[in-house]
């Protein structure tokens, strides 16, 4: 990490336009034949109080070991609900259908007991708020050791040693001493490192990061993402990165899924997606982000309206009421189809290739 920081940060004048280090983020991991996770037409609805909220309406993707998939969407797009469905972490009002196979095992419909066997050991999750995910009355080392013992038959002393190792692995300075500290003695970034250490305790093959860096400062976010990638390369973990931040997806993911109102509206390799945005919703999201290269006081392109009510979804394209290219056709379909190799979108009026590339 320190060598990265002191490395000459290339091309200063690019800040507005561009990159700090414009090497590709990393070589895409080789595509192994066997995906680790295959999600197929996953649907989640919440039933209660006389209404049904359709939170996830047909999510499909597959993820191979060592690769990173970003699921991007706004509040209420269903991105977190879908992840929690995999983990068996939804309340009893949730009705989950479809399929999610992890290394051949069907996760949908598992009993709580069976789900518990996978949680932590095969799939681990890191949440947005590390302060609330940690027990404030327990020393952090004890919390990590507890997670270690839950997933192995190590004795107390060995679990302690393993916890210190894990703290070192997530680059927490002075791990021996930090072991005995309480969460309130750590900064937000350090707490998130502890959460990652806990997540790694069971040596999971899939790590789900649900807005894991959203509450952190940009400098800390860069450190945590760097850590996740380093661990991924070392351990071959697959990562699902759930975020509202397209920029984060652009920098760190191999593949991107864009969700709106519980549906996948576009899906592609990261480079393909940003080079050829097809779905008007993705285009609107990109356009609405304040960017460094924009002039001060310029007006942002605006998408009118609000996301739809998930308990009264109209048929057809959910983005239709807010979309400037919508026509009557959009009231029917449009299905998510692979229109270009590896590039899927659900739109009758995809955007043409932009003449000028824009940054995120």
């Amino acid at each position, binding site marked *: 990490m320190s060598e990265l920081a002191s490395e000459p940060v290339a091309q*200063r004048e690019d800040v507005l336009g561009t990159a700090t280090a414009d090497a*590709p983020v990393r070589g895409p991991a080789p595509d192994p034949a066997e995906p680790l996770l295959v999600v197929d037409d996953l649907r989640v609805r919440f039933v209660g109080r006389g209404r049904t909220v359709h939170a996830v309406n047909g999510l499909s993707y597959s993820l191979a070991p060592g690769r990173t998939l970003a699921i991007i969407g706004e509040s209420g797009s269903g991105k977190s609900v879908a992840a929690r469905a995999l983990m068996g972490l939804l309340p009893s009002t949730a009705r989950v259908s479809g399929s999610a196979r992890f290394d051949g095992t069907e996760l949908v419909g598992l009993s709580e007991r069976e789900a518990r066997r996978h949680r932590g050991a095969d799939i681990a999750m890191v949440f947005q708020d590390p302060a609330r995910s940690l027990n404030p009355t327990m020393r952090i080392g004890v919390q990590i050791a507890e997670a270690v013992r839950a997933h192995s038959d190590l004795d107390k002393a060995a679990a302690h040693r393993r916890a210190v190792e894990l703290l070192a692995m997530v680059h927490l300075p002075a791990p021996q001493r930090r072991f005995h500290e309480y969460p309130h003695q750590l900064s937000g970034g350090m707490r998130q490192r502890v959460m990652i250490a806990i997540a790694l305790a069971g040596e999971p093959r899939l790590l789900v990061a649900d807005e894991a860096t959203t509450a952190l*400062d940009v400098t800390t976010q860069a450190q945590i993402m760097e850590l996740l990638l380093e661990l991924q390369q070392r351990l071959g973990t697959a990562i699902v990165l759930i975020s509202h931040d397209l920029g984060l997806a652009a920098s760190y993911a191999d593949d991107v899924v864009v969700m709106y109102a519980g549906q996948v509206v576009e899906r592609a390799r990261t*480079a393909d997606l940003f080079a050829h945005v097809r779905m008007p919703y993705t285009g609107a999201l990109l356009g609405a982000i304040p960017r*460094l290269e*924009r002039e001060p006081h310029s007006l*942002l392109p605006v998408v009118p309206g609000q996301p739809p009510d998930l308990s009264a979804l109209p048929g057809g394209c959910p983005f239709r009421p807010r979309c400037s290219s919508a026509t009557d056709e959009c009231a029917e379909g449009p299905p998510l189809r692979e229109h270009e190799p590896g590039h899927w979108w659900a739109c009758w009026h995809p955007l043409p290739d932009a003449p000028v590339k824009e940054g995120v």
Partner: protein
Amino acid sequence: MTTLEKGTAPVDGRRPGEELLSARDLVQEFPVRAAGGVRGGTVHALSGVSFDIRAGETLGVVGETGSGKSTLARSVIQAPPPRSGSVVFEGTDLTRLRRRALVRARREMQMVYQDPYGSLNPRWRVSELVEEPLRGYGVRDRGPRVAELLDMVGLDPSVYGRRRPHEMSGGQCQRVAIARAIALNPALVICDEAVSSLDVLIQSQVLNLFERLRRELGLSYLFISHDLALVKQVSDRVAVMHLGQLAEVGPAEALYRGPRHPYTAALLDSIPGLDARTGRPRRPAPLAGEPPSPLDPPSGCRFRTRCPRARERCAVEEPVLVERAPDHRVACHFPIEPGTPTGADAPADAAERTTP
């Protein structure tokens, strides 16, 4: 769209470019209690911060969590007043005002906070919420003005006037908070992370509203956010805060294009995204180490423990803001020269570097 009636226009008596607000040497400290209630130390939230806001201008403030951005805003409105320093607003030093005079002066400066639900009374209707500041300052004939204000922030008074906050989305609530803030024709609106909790598409709607109100009402903003791109979008000038001090202040475009302070450069280098020119992802370059504690800031330059350019001098001598380019001030002994890569003119002699 309603425009302001003549005579109420806030630009009266102020020429654009004139200083509307001058803060000098603001110091704010908070005692911290350790276990058992004993004195545990002092948080140095602001340590000698000086800045100006000119009439009609937006000053953006960026910095990490705990850098003192919100304390700065609160010191300006005297809630609570700073421990020392002065805040001259429209010719009056607010730090010397007694309670009633201060309340009168605050009419001209309003705040918009991050959490729209938390800053609106959940039991009041929208029309009552917007009417409250008018009633508080004894404005007569409030009904038409409430309707005019709701119209200005893009909420139809006949539809939204009778709603309560929980019946609206976050973006709509933030519009109500903005209507309250501009109700009394303030000269200055302080936005403390005012759009940070909103989704991107709603955020852009509210940002455009701020921009339209600025143009129509001649407002000045103090716009605080942790999001650098967001701040650039709205600001004429930008101040970068680090641990209770200003690291760099300058024109937005110049500061982002050629940051002089290594901290500003590090912040910009941490933003993930796509390269605008090549369309390839850029890999953020993280800073090493943890932000130092405001309880015990490092000696000399407070950024030196994380700074790739730090040398011995940085540990002993506290840098002050020096004008390095027109209107562009930097507090660094070894600022980045424009046009050079950040690291290239850094001290080559590793032995000279201070050990954090």
